[in-house]
């Protein structure tokens, strides 16, 4: 495929950033949820 480097760069950056963001927010949520009582979690 022509210009494969450019195309892959855009896909990898987008999917990578999305994955990193998702992983980070889940991890942060788990860390905090372990330390706080259920009353502080209005979504439950």
């Amino acid at each position, binding site marked *: *495929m*022509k*210009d*494969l480097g*450019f*195309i892959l*760069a*855009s*896909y990898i*950056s*987008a*999917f990578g*950033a*999305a994955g990193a*963001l*998702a992983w980070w*927010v*889940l991890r*942060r*949520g*788990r860390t*905090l*949820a*372990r*330390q*706080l*009582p*259920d009353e*502080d*979690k*209005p*979504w*439950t």
Partner: protein
Amino acid sequence: MATTAESQTTAPVATAPTVLHTGTRFTRVLGVLTIASLAVLALFGLIISPEDITQGESVRILYIHVGTVWVAYLAFVVTAVSSAAYLWKRTRSLTWDRIAGASAEIGVVFMALTLLAGALWGRLSWGTFWVWDARVTTTAFLFITYVGYLAVRGLGGSHQQRARRSAVVALLAVLEIPLVHFSVKLWRSVHQDASVADRTSNVTLDDTMLFTLMLATVAFTLLYVWYVFHRQRVLTLEDAMDDSGLDLALAERRREGEVAR
């Protein structure tokens, strides 16, 4: 204060927590849908969809570019609307502030991706990474403005102070961005004729390409909604953590006061 910082990590929990994450059935379904649609997007974007007659393979970058830019602008509209909702007394709630913050965060990330994908595509299509077009320039300014917005959110103070200050800054950005767009547009229209918008419209999309474009928009929007839900809950927890740190610090401070008598 050292005592407060310590109590952060050792916060004892009144009743043992049973919910150890920020997910609900809704966000899990949403998450699965997001992953599935992103996988299908990769498949269509990179393999199934054909190359463009005039642009060749570089059209594949456009799927990422259009999908992310749509989410980025959506995110900033949501930030502005929820900031206004916070400032309006009858709907004042820290939830609005947290939605605004969560939305701006993912908006900034997607704006960066947009600019990157746009630059790569521009290099292939026009031989240049950057064009001083009104839309491109406005997008860059939006990016910087919301980086500033996030910096203001991080200034500290009470939750209410953070919410009020950042909401005002978000609404000032609503004042600023159209002015930037208008001035750049006026500037380029005086000095140059063709804009990027005209050149972009040369792309002729067949059905598969159109489908891929729609898919990208949907997939990234799902991701956006999923993220805002989770992040909003994490921000709620972060605020609660601050407050529980306060309870401990208060008890400690009171003890200090009672002992001294």
